[in-house]
């Protein structure tokens, strides 16, 4: 049951993320990338196996959960957070420099003029 729920959550997040990334406005793309990184983080987190009741600290339990995916996901979260922050600033800068928030820097109407 847990496996099914987890895979549906990751799948839906990934699908939404990819869909949003294909949009033409920077804000939507940013949201898409954020969703994709959530999906990826969950995916890394479950890569050590999905089981409940395993010990996290040595000496408290007979079997232990794999600590490495937790370390990996922590690294991935930190890096993803920094990258998202950078992307927000970059998108605002591009909005100011180019005059609109289209990913190609030209609003739909004046595409011929600016090209």
């Amino acid at each position, binding site marked *: 049951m847990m496996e099914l729920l987890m895979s549906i959550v990751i799948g839906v997040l990934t699908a939404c993320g990819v869909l949003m990334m294909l949009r033409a406005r920077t804000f939507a793309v940013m949201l898409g990338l954020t969703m994709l990184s959530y999906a990826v983080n969950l995916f890394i987190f479950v890569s050590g196996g999905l089981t409940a009741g395993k010990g996290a600290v040595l000496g408290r339990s007979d079997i232990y959960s794999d600590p*490495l995916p937790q370390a990996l996901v922590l690294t991935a979260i930190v890096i993803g957070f920094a990258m998202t922050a950078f992307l927000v600033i970059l998108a605002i800068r591009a909005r100011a420099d180019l005059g609109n928030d289209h*990913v190609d820097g030209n609003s739909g109407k004046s595409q011929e003029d600016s090209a």
Partner: protein
Amino acid sequence: MMHHLPILPILVPLLTAALLLLPPFQAKLSRQRWFSGAGLLLLLVVSVLGLVESSTGVSSFYLLGNWPQPFGIVLVHDRLAAMFVLLAAVLAFAAWLFSLGGEDGQGAFYHPLLHFLLMGINGAFLTGDLFNLFVFFEVLLISSYGLLMHGGGKARARAGLHYVLMNLAGSAVFLLALALLYAVLGTLNIADMALRINQLEPSQALLVKAAAGMLLLVFGLKAAVLPLHFWLPSAYSSAAPAVAAMFAVMTKIGVYCLLRVFGTLFTEPGHPLQDFGQQLLWLAGLATLLLAAIGVVAAQSLKKLVAYLVLVSVGSLISVLAIGTVPAIAAVLYYCLHSTLIAAALFLLADVIAQQRGTVADRLVSGRPLQQPVLLGTLFIVAALAVVGMPPLSGFVGKIWLLQAATEVSERAALWSVLLLSSLLVLIALTRAGSTLFWRLNRQQAGSESASLPQLYAVLSLLLCSPLLVIFGDAVMQFCLATAQQLQTPLAVMTAGGNQ
């Protein structure tokens, strides 16, 4: 001290960059310049020492935190890593020299970012751990985002946005591949992964294959192979010239990762995953080569043309890399050195030429005469000869070697026709560009601005590498061959390496 040599190419730029951010250096540009230069000089010394040490043929391991393999993160310091670290250091030195012409003052953090970028690049070259490779990728990427935006402007904002978005999506795919590989193999040490892949059951091999496909996508994006190359021309041509020159090594990181990761993981003879992706890379490489050559002919500005030349070199490297024999990989390594240095020289030269043409800048239309036509013309001809592959420069040696790498008739037919056709197209495009820039002049007076000395020295030092690669050709080729040989036996080396 020699014991810690493998980690110094990461530590030196890290410390330099961190110190450069402190107030005494932030306040004055001149102090930043000298300290940054001193850091680079130290890095060059360290890289040369590393190269000398690695050329004894013993690859050393550096265990971070002294955790035993395969549990801790390990740095692998072999010929391949040492060679690329030195290449990055030489490029960075030229970029630093060029930026003394005034470019480093256009934005706030040029020098620290350059060193952080170097730290990421060297880390990616040295690490023997796949997750650590991801982390160093991110270090070099976030510095490159900053450097790409250096100086600001509309074109850079647009190209920067595309570059950042593409790479963020790439990082997400990289993480998916990593998690999948870890779930199946239970390790992230590349050498250990190779051992475990050989013991897999067929059902699990399919999962590894899926992960390998994603890795191929990520490295293809870094190397800018055909369907994933659209970000490169606009990003490289709009970046500040010193930055673009430094970026010339970035596509080679993709090539390096293909060599290191795929060359280690999927080499077991008879294994279902043996030589995974080679067929795809072969076709994609040839297609990149052809389309990039068309791009070179179609380019309307010199910087765009040079950006497409980077793609031409990527196409040649990837297609020959896919052949996979020892001479082929040796040829790839030699051509990597040559094409990186010359592409960087051309980016710098394009900007020097553009500065003297006033408002038309580097666009390939008739403009006013240059202030220093003879000097710049000579430099342009030398660079063009090297990049096209005419004797007596390194491009000739490199291309001959690439052509010789194809041994089977079908390979020869494909590679020779595509590579020679693309060379012809590049020759035509460069001839046309050169005659437009230097001979199709309008009646305006030449401007008064002449190229500053640091900029000229930077171009000269990079161009000088081309004849040096020919004069010391035998030594360089022997080194490349030995490197390719060493790559053929990664597992034996890794397991025999032991503790350091």
